[in-house]
C-alpha cells in the first residue's frame, strides 16, 4: 500500500532558480494492482519514485508505505520496498550470487534463510548457470535477472519500477514486464513509471498522468477513455498535457 500525500520536491538551480520537480502530488496504490505513472521526460516521474523509495527527501508533503512514513521512518520504508530502474546498476566485481547475498544481508536476513531464498530465487529465474559469474561479465538479460533477484531477496510487499525497460531489447524488456505482472499476481503493491504508452495499456490497472511535476489526472484506462472521449491513450495523453495548445488549435 502506497499513499502519497501532497508530495513536493523543489531543487535550486543556479541558472534557472527554483525548480518544482514535483508539485503537490497525491495518489494511492493498492495491493494487487499496478499503478502506472505516465509522463514525458522531465515530468517528475523519477523524482516522485525516488521520494517513495526514500532516496530523496520530500521538500513538502509525505508518503506512507506499509504504514511507515517516508520522512519519519525511511529505513523501515526501504525494508518494505523493492526498487528497480535502469539506473540501479550492479557491482561489477561481485558475482551474481554475492550481489544478491549482499542485499539480502543488508535486509537483515540470517545466513540460513538467505541460503534458502537464494536457491529458490535462482531456480525460479533460471540463474544457476551464471550465479558465480562476475556482474561485469554478464549479458544485459542476465544483469536484469540479477537485478530482479536483488529486489526479490527480501520479498518486499511494495515494488517500485522507474522506467525499468528503458534501453532494453524486446526480449529483456519482456522479462521485466512479465516480472511486474507476477508481482501483482502475488498481491504486491506495484508502481511503475514509463513514457511508453503501449506498456501502460498492457500492464496498468490505474494510470496517473504527470506533467511539469503535477499529477494532472488519474483513473483506469476505461475511465480515462470515457472522460476524454478518445480510445487511444496517446491521444488522451496529448489532450491532457497540452490543454492550452489544443484550445488554440480549436
Amino acid at each position, binding site marked *: 500500500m502506497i499513499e502519497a500525500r501532497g508530495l513536493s520536491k523543489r*531543487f*535550486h538551480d543556479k541558472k534557472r532558480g527554483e525548480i518544482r520537480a514535483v508539485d503537490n502530488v497525491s495518489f494511492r496504490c493498492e495491493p494487487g494492482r499496478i499503478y502506472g505513472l505516465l509522463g514525458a521526460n522531465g515530468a517528475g516521474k523519477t523524482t516522485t519514485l*525516488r521520494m517513495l*523509495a*526514500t*532516496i*530523496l*527527501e520530500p521538500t513538502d508533503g509525505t508518503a506512507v508505505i506499509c504504514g511507515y512514513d517516508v520522512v519519519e521512518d525511511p*529505513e*523501515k520504508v*526501504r*525494508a518494505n*520496498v523493492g*526498487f528497480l*530502474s535502469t*539506473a*540501479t*546498476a*550492479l*557491482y*561489477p*566485481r*561481485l558475482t551474481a550470487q*554475492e550481489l544478491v547475498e*549482499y*542485499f539480502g*544481508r*543488508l*535486509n*537483515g536476513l540470517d545466513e540460513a534463510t538467505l541460503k534458502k531464498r537464494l536457491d529458490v530465487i535462482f531456480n525460479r529465474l533460471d540463474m544457476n548457470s551464471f550465479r558465480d559469474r562476475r556482474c561485469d561479465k554478464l549479458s544485459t538479460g542476465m544483469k536484469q535477472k540479477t537485478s530482479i533477484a*536483488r529486489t526479490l531477496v527480501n520479498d518486499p510487499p511494495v515494488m517500485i519500477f522507474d522506467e525499468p525497460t528503458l534501453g532494453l531489447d524486446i526480449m529483456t524488456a519482456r522479462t521485466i514486464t512479465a516480472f511486474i505482472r507476477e508481482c501483482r499476481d502475488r498481491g504486491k503493491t506495484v508502481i511503475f513509471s514509463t513514457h511508453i504508452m503501449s506498456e501502460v495499456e498492457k500492464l496498468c490497472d490505474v494510470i496517473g498522468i504527470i506533467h511539469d511535476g503535477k499529477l494532472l489526472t488519474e483513473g483506469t484506462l476505461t475511465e480515462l477513455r470515457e472522460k476524454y472521449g478518445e480510445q487511444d491513450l496517446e491521444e488522451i495523453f496529448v489532450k491532457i498535457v497540452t490543454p492550452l495548445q489544443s484550445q488554440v488549435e480549436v
Partner: protein
Amino acid sequence: MNLSAVGIVYRKEFREWVRDRRTLISTVLVPLFLFPVMMVGFSALAVVMVGKAEKETPKIMVLGGEDSPQLLASIRKLDSLEIVPYAGNWKDQISNKDIRAAVEIPKNFEKSLTTSNSESVKIYFYDGEMKSSFGANRIEKFLKDYRDAVVKDRLAAKNLPASVLAPFSIKQENVAPPEKVSGATFGSFIGYTVIILCMTGAMYPAIDLTAGEKERGTMETILSSPISRLDLVCGKFLLVFSASLATAILSVISMGGSFAILGHTSLMNSSSGGQTLALNLGLLSIVAVFLMALPLAFLFSAVLMTIALFAKSYKEAQSYLTPMTFLIVIPAVASVMPGVELTPKLALIPILNTSLVCKEIITGTYHWNSIALIFVSTCVYAGVALFLAFKTFQRESVLFRS
C-alpha cells in the same frame, strides 16, 4: 549506528577492493617494490657516478705562470691532473666540459714568495658541476700543500719550530649514538614516505567507493537498500582507512628491508667517505612512527572521500584530488628541509607535524608533550573530517549532482 550493517558493507567493499587490479598496483606493488627499487637504484647510480668522476684525471689549464717555472714544473709532475696547453677560450672550454678547471698564476708569483707580498692564485671552475668541482678541489689541495711547504721553508730559515703556527690543535668528536647520525639523514625521508603512501593508498579506494559508485550507477541501488546512510559511510570509510594503513604498513616493511639490504652491501660504504647508510631502526621507533601515522591516515581517508564524493565520475574525482595531493606533499616536503624543527606552533599544522615528529622518533628522541599534542590535534582534525564526510553523504545535491 548498526555495527553489523557496517560490517556487511565493509566486507563487501573489501571483497571488491581485493578484486581490483588497480588496487594491487597502488597498495601492494608501489610500496613494496617501487620505493625500494628507487632508493637502491638511485643510491647505486649516485655511487657509480661519483666513483666515475673521482677516477677521472681532470684536465686543468694553467693561465700565466711563465715566470714561475718551479711551480709549473711541480704542477706538471702531478699524476692526478692532466695539464693542457693554454688557449684563449678557456672559459668556454670549462663551460663545454672540455677542461674541468683553470688555475691562474699571478705575475711574478715566485718572486713574491721571497718578499712579503701576498698574491692570490685563482681557480676557475663551473659551480654545480661535480667533475669540475673535483678538478678544482685537486688543484686547490696541491696549492695548499705547496703553500704549507713554503711556510715550512720560511720557518726553517728563521730557525723556528713548526708548532709556532699551530700552538694547539682542534678536533671534533661525535657524541650522538650512530642511529641518531644516520637517523637524522634518513629519518625525515621515512616519515615523508610513510605520509605520502598513506595518502596514495587512500586515494584510489576513496574515489572508487564514492565517485566510482556514482559513475557505475550503483549509488542508487545501494541507497534503495534498508541500510542507513551513516552505516554506509562508516563501512566505506573503514575500507578506505584500511587501504591507507595497509599501504603504510607495506611501505614501512619494504623500507626496513631495503635499508637492511643497503646496509649489508659494501656498495655504500666504499667511496662515500666512511658514512654508512645502515639504519638501525629499532622496533620501537617503527611502531611509534606507525602509531603517529594512524590518525593521519584517518584524516586523509575522510578528507579524500569527502572531496571525491562531489565528483560525478572517476576522472572528475581525480582532477579534484590532484591539487589536493600537492597540499599534502608540500608540508611533507617542508619537514625534510634541513633546519625545520618541531615547535609548539608547527605541532598544530597537520601533516607537517607528523612528518617532523617521525623524524625525531627515528633519531631516538621522544618529546612526549609534542607527541601527545600532535596525536590529539591530528585526531581532532580527523574527527572533523569524518563528520564532514557524514554530512556530505546526507546531501542530495551532492549524491545526485547532474
